[in-house]
């Protein structure tokens, strides 16, 4: 599959900062993937998200979106291909009502009003928030606000959506809800998702995991590749997934399960086989 995002040797340092927030970062993402970006607080995840959207000007390196290099001239067109959903639902609501907020990005493009109305309606339908179209943000729950944020982004029909800890301020129900919606949308609309997250449930269902540490990408790979080795994971901002921890502890306790990473159903199958052998 064609790569949709290519970063080559990208570095960025904030003004007045002693250390670069990103250092020589190279990354390739294939289209229609779900990429989980993980790392400790301050490791540069949000910075990475922002440079991808051209929100911060990189010092060195190149960024290509859909094969095209990102430059200051094509910034606004490129940005239309990328949508972002942020952490705090309250800090990204621009419109005074749900529909106004969804329309915000369309207004910025100068889209005619009747076309906007169609798009807004369509986007709200995708996240099942049509009934709330005229509501004010204060009357919504955190999860509902994030749904509106998603609608505001997909209304622009981007090819890539970046989520920066978009579920971390929600309760478990809200979290699952948003995750499910994003999975559906990814299938339906064929988008690429980059998700910054600390949530293990989300990480283990990603196609690709990218680990950042102190501004550098120190590891990328599939779930199996990343979790085949338990050592150092916590230092990298990762708890081992539950099944992996269980496998390791069972082995330590003398239960002969395989060392290789298994997802939940595979591990259960293996345990059943073990039991039958007893």
């Amino acid at each position, binding site marked *: 599959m064609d790569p949709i995002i290519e970063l080559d040797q990208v570095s960025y340092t904030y003004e007045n900062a002693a250390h670069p927030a990103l250092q020589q970062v190279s990354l390739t993402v294939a289209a229609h993937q779900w990429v989980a970006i993980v790392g400790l607080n301050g490791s540069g995840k949000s910075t990475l998200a922002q440079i991808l959207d051209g929100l911060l000007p990189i010092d060195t390196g190149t960024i290509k979106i859909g094969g095209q290099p990102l430059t200051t001239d094509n910034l606004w067109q490129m940005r239309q291909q990328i949508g972002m959903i942020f952490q705090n639902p309250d800090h990204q609501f621009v419109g005074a009502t749900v529909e106004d907020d969804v329309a915000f990005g369309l207004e910025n493009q100068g889209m005619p009003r009747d076309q906007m109305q169609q798009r807004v309606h369509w986007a709200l339908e995708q996240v099942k928030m049509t009934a709330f179209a005229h509501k004010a943000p204060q009357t919504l729950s955190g999860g509902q606000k994030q749904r509106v944020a998603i609608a505001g982004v997909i209304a622009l029909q981007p090819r890539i959506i970046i989520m920066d800890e978009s579920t971390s301020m929600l309760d478990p129900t809200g979290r699952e809800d948003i995750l499910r919606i994003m999975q559906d949308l990814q299938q339906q609309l064929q988008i690429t998702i980059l998700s910054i997250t*600390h949530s293990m449930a989300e990480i283990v269902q990603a196609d690709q995991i990218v680990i950042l540490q102190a501004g550098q990408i120190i590891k990328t790979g599939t779930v199996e590749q990343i979790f085949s080795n338990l050592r150092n994971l916590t230092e990298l901002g990762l708890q081992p997934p539950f099944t992996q921890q269980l496998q390791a502890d069972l082995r330590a306790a003398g239960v002969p399960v395989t060392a290789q990473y298994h997802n939940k159903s595979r591990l259960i199958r293996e345990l059943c086989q073990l039991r039958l052998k007893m």
Partner: protein
Amino acid sequence: MPITFENVTHIYQSSGPLAATGIKNVNLTINDGDFVAIIGQTGSGKSTLVQHMNALLKPTAGVIHIGERAITPDSKNKHLKKLRQKVGMVFQFPEAQLFEDTVLKDICFGPQNFGASVTQAQATAREMLDLVKLPADIAEQSPFDLSGGQMRRVAIAGVLAARPQVLILDEPTAGLDPQAHTELMELFANLNRQGTTIILISHQMEDVAQYCNRVLIMENAQLIRSTTPQMLFNDQDFIIQHNLQVPEATAFAQELVQQGFQFESLPITEPQLVQQLRRQLGGING
């Protein structure tokens, strides 16, 4: 300092047209040394409940006994300092309460309000920095130059500095990375071992299972159950009926049960699960 609620109800704006029930008819007792979890959906009244425990809110009806003191709807708002010193409260995203220009001053703010001298307060503050595992040289820095995780620790140190006997925590680790999460939870567990009563609002059932000896379940402004984590997570019907989560270890065990495994009682933590499986599958020392 035990805390008792007797038929406590709180209605927000009880006189106005926008009256909203915060909690309704709550009865409970929290004993010295408890590590209590409060769980429930968003808006179920958890925050309202705990804000009564240091008299930030007064009941609309009912009585709350906090140690020697009784808080009733008619209690005057005066002289609550002593109470608030003994019952510390860490709010959600507590870094939002920082306002001084150095970390040390900010941690001293509480103790000084409660009557400590500057030197006394500073000594305590330095001790607290150590307790929350922040380097000592951070004391003279501005809290606003710190990372999010460090700011959180400073804010928590600012509450601990009053040396409360009861510590209330409203989702204290929200938004932190897993490493910081574990470190803070261990800190609270340690305080609890040294005798501090801990009351924790949490959405993370792993924490409830691992650290708490009691769990209170709120739903629609009511306290619907007060039990132990072990009992709660073994009551599958109740869990499903009230739309609650179980720890991963329990969920995993439940799936094993469907495949024919048997557990006397469902494990609620990963070590428990390992132990039980080891027994069934014959590991070493089995």
